[in-house]
Structures are given as structure tokens and as C-alpha cells.
């Protein structure tokens, strides 16, 4: 990967930016118990910028997934500080973690669509979690997103009748329909063709610009990396490189 194009190296000073949606300080994490206990993250410090698309790079086992799941409130913080949208997650109970997750959007490598729900209904799942008040006009909102993602003709299709790429686009719509503050994405474009992938990432970028939606994405897709505002590289549980892009 050519890093020469990068112009800005992020510094510890960014950790104190008041508008940072995610601030990680001295984060350590372990898996296993006793002698089998293995450290996965070592003193990770990081702040995400509001509205920016950040790509997280690293080999398998580098700790990027652990970091992603901790920031996504899917694991409990063991040591260090992790502030998400102003909420300290260290010591947070399950109820608080669930509440925080409702402000996030997740796009997984696998679409994990519900086979018995149509594309529209699957997208609705991302909205229904916010309660009845959020459901007003859900059909319009869901259809609008699906149309942007090129699925306007397949709103009422069951996942079984959609291609892999189409399913993944429904999953993207499901993650975005609730207007999340932060989107965590794990190889979201792996199942998409080039145009669909660029279209999806363009949508994330647009949300970043228009709504301030922050995106943290694990990807090895080079065409996506060129669209990133920032690229963080992890190795053996540590951030070894963290730069903004031109």
C-alpha cells in the first residue's frame, strides 16, 4: 500500500477534541483465562472525527476486530477508557451498552438478513428498535434508502430472491435507516461489484457530510481506501500507523 499520499499524521492531541464521537485512551483487552489469557489490544489511543470515513487496516489477529467490537459496544471494556458519543463505556452495564448500540449502525461482512422478511421489512428492523415514534413514515424512509442503493425494483423481495450483492445492500440500508451517529462496517463491500461498492461508500461519505455520520470500516478493498478520510493500521494489538489522506 502506498502511504506516501498521506498528508496528516494523527497525534495524541486529537484525543481531547470535544466533538470526537469516539475517544479511546489506554485501552487494553485480553481474551481467555489463567495461563491461556492472551492480550489482544495494547494501550490503544484513538479519537474518531465526526463525519469522517476511517478505514482500519491490519492482518488477521492484529486486533482490529476486537477494537471494532469494543467501540461498537459489543464487548465490555476491561482496561482503559472508551468514550462513545459522550458515554464512558468502561464499567458500563449491558443495559447501557444496548442503549448505546441503538445510536450505531452495523454492516457485517455477512448480510445476516432475516430470510422471512422482505427487503423493506429487513430495513424496517433497523428503525423499529428506536420505538414507535421512529416508525412514522418508515416505508418512505426504507424505500428511499433502498432506491439510493439500487434496489428500488426489489423492495418487497425476500432475501432468497436477491443476489449476494443485493442482500448486502439491504444490510447497508438496514444499518443506515435509523440515522446512526456512527457506522461500524466490516468488509461491507466484499460481496458488491465495483459500482455498487462505490455507490455504498459514496452514500456513507454523503451521510458524513450532510448528517455528520462517522464511519469506521475494516476493509482491504483498495478502491474504498482511496475514498477514506483516514487510515489506521494495526499490528499485534497496537496502532502502528494513523494518517489522514489527501
Amino acid at each position, binding site marked *: 500500500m502506498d502511504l506516501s499520499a498521506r498528508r496528516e499524521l494523527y497525534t495524541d492531541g486529537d484525543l481531547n477534541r470535544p466533538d470526537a464521537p469516539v475517544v479511546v485512551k489506554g485501552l487494553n483487552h485480553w481474551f481467555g483465562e489463567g495461563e491461556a489469557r492472551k492480550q489482544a489490544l495494547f494501550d490503544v489511543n484513538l479519537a474518531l472525527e465526526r463525519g469522517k470515513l476511517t478505514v482500519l487496516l491490519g492482518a488477521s489477529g492484529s486486533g482490529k476486530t476486537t477494537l471494532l467490537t469494543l467501540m461498537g459496544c459489543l*464487548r465490555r471494556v476491561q482496561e482503559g477508557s472508551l468514550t462513545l458519543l459522550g458515554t464512558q463505556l468502561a464499567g458500563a452495564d449491558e443495559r447501557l451498552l444496548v442503549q448505546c448500540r441503538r445510536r450505531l449502525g452495523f454492516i457485517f461482512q455477512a448480510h*445476516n438478513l432475516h430470510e*422471512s422478511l422482505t427487503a423493506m421489512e429487513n430495513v*424496517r428492523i433497523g428503525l423499529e428498535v428506536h420505538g414507535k415514534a421512529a416508525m412514522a413514515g418508515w416505508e418512505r424512509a426504507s424505500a428511499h434508502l433502498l432506491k439510493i442503493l439500487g434496489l428500488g425494483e426489489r423492495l418487497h423481495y425476500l432475501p432468497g430472491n436477491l443476489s449476494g450483492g443485493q442482500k448486502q445492500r439491504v444490510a447497508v440500508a438496514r444499518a443506515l435507516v435509523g440515522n446512526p451517529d456512527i457506522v461500524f462496517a466490516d468488509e461491507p463491500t466484499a460481496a458488491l461489484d465495483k459500482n455498487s461498492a462505490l455507490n455504498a461508500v459514496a452514500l456513507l461519505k454523503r451521510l458524513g457530510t450532510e448528517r455528520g455520520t462517522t464511519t469506521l470500516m475494516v476493509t482491504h478493498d483498495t478502491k474504498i481506501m482511496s475514498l477514506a478520510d483516514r487510515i489506521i493500521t494495526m499490528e499485534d494489538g497496537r496502532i502502528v500507523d494513523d494518517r489522514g489522506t489527501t
Partner: protein
Amino acid sequence: MTILLGHLLGRLPIGWLQLVHNKTRLAAALAGVAFASVLVLMQLGFLGALVASIKLPYDQMNADLLISASDMNTLADGSPLPRQRMFEALTVKGVQSATPLYYGKVEWKQPDGTIRNLDVFGIDPSVETLRNPAISARLNDISLSDVALIDARVRNVSKSLFAKIAAGEPYRFEVKGRTLKVVGTFEIGGGFSADGYLVVSDQTFLRLFPQRSAGAPNHILVTLAPGADPAPILERLRATLPADDSIVRTVEETFGRDQAFQTTQRPVGLVFGFGVVIGILVGIIIVYQVLSTDVAEHLKEYATFKAIGYSQRFFLGIVFEEALILAILGFVPGFLVSLLLYTVVATVTGLPLAMTWARAAFVLMGTLGMCALSGAIATRKLARANPADLF
């Protein structure tokens, strides 16, 4: 249905949509729940028929209290009772009448060689011992030697025979070496131990059962003076009669004891009770199997929902939604099939087998409970849906 459930639940009826998505599995699950419902309804029906058939003779007794042998469990067992107890009972204030009832069993051999078992009541024809109008109207007739009245509901006997008897054409058959002349009919109905009833006078009874004695009836039927309070009279009778050979109870109490004994101590009652338990277990296992498979197959989707921010309560709601839908949709065909089977069995066996709303409601509640329990067990698998594993 989806729209209706959506309105009821206030959310997407995911449980319903999941169930109808796999129609083969849904059909199998509904068949399973229906089968369990049929099993439970039939066993409860048989149990109900047993209780109803036990009650039939008690309903015929023109009595407020019943003096029986102290070792009596059912109407048919227990030692004979000294008739002296009848006279002693008559001395108790508040007792209006006391009359003996003799009880026995005979076999009625049919022209084809098969046997019908009849319970025989031997009564004093000068007293209205039984409150059956058809019997009361023919008391004079049975006061004659070897004359009887027969139950027109005796199982597996041509109705035309009883029609002829009722029309005045006497029917004769041999019992214990004596020829009985049947001059009339009444209706009680058979149970699990006999096919029907025969009513004769006490004198004819003693001729049919020569080993029995007039001084030792099976029960003494006691009526109280009009308006008398049974409780103090019952106490006075208990104080008067020796407890080592006799016991006094209300007719209702005696029936209750008989019912409790036959449903909990006798194999037939235990078998039906066991059948109910088996039916419930079958239902729980079938529904659990369906729900746990369903949960296991959707673990990734549930994990995704968890990641999105749905709480455990939401998932429990989906599983219970499925459980309740299976319960209701499975119960309806089970109930209809049971109604049909009740009719068939009642017709074939002559047992007092009838569906009651209370039983249907009880089994529906039980089916709902059974499915909810299965759902509760199945939800344990939900804990394995860890959203962190999705990355």
C-alpha cells in the same frame, strides 16, 4: 394475519413470519400440537367419562345421606352392612326415612354368546329408593317375584329390544339359573365396570344372590326431614352408629370418595391421568423441538438484532409469539378432531363422553402453557447469539 398481528404486537410479527416462511415445518409443528391436544382431550374425556359414570348411580339415589360399610371405597365394594343400622338411624332426630339398597353384579348372556355385565340394584319396592321416574312408575311391577327393569342404555344391545320392552312386550333371560322377566326400561347408562343397570326388588335380589342376606344390605339411603340441617344430623348419626362397621356421609361426599379412589387408586384412573401427562410431554417436546430448531437456525439474525440494539425481551417476545401461535393454531384442529372422536367413542362404547367448555378452555390454557414452557426452554439458546461473533 400479518397485519392483525402487527397491530396487536405493535411491531413486525417476526415470529409469525418465521413460522409461515417454512410451511412444511409449520405444518409438522401444528400437527404435533394438534396431536398432543387430541391426546390430552381424549384422556381427559375418558377421565371425565369415568367420573360421570361413577356419578350416574349416585344421581339416582333418593337420599340425603348414605350409610355404608366403613371399608367401602366404591359403591360396588365394601362389606355388607347390618340392617340394624337402618333402624338405629331411624331413631335419630331429623331422619325422615332410611331404606336399604342391595348391590350386586350379574352377567347377561346374549344370543351370540357374548356377555353384558350388569350392576343390580335391589330395592324395597314399597319405597321410592331411586329418583328415576321410569323406575318409580314400575315399582309395583317389580314387587312380583323375578321381575326386573333394565337399563335401556346397556352397551352393545339392540335398541329395538328395549323398544319392545318399553312397548309392553316382556323380555326374559336367564341369570344365575333363574329366569328374569324384564317388564320395563329406564335410562342410566354403563360405565367402565359394567355395561348397564338392572333394578329388582330386594326379594328378587336375594333370590338372585342366595348367599346374601336380607339383614345385610350394601348401603342405607337416608332422607332427612324437610328443611332439616344435614350437618348436625350427620354428626348425630355418626355418634349413634358404630364406626367399626359403618360410616355416614352425604351422597356427595360418598361420590367424592368413590371418585377419588377410582381415579387415583385404580389402574383405569391412573392410566388416564398418565395419558394426560404423556400428552403434555409430547406437546412440550414437539414444540420445544420446533422452537429450538428455529432459534438455532436464526442465531446469526438474532445476533444481528442484538447488535442493532434489541434487548433480550424482544427475542423472548418472538419466541413466545411463535409458541402462542403454535398453541392456538394447533389446538383448533386438535379440538375439532377430539369432538369427532368423542362422538365416535361415545357411540361405540356408550360411555358418557362429552366435551365441556370448561375442559376445552382448560386444555387450551394447558396448550398455551405447554407451548410457553417450551418457548421458555428454547430461549436458553438465544444466549449463544453473541453479536461480537458476527465480526
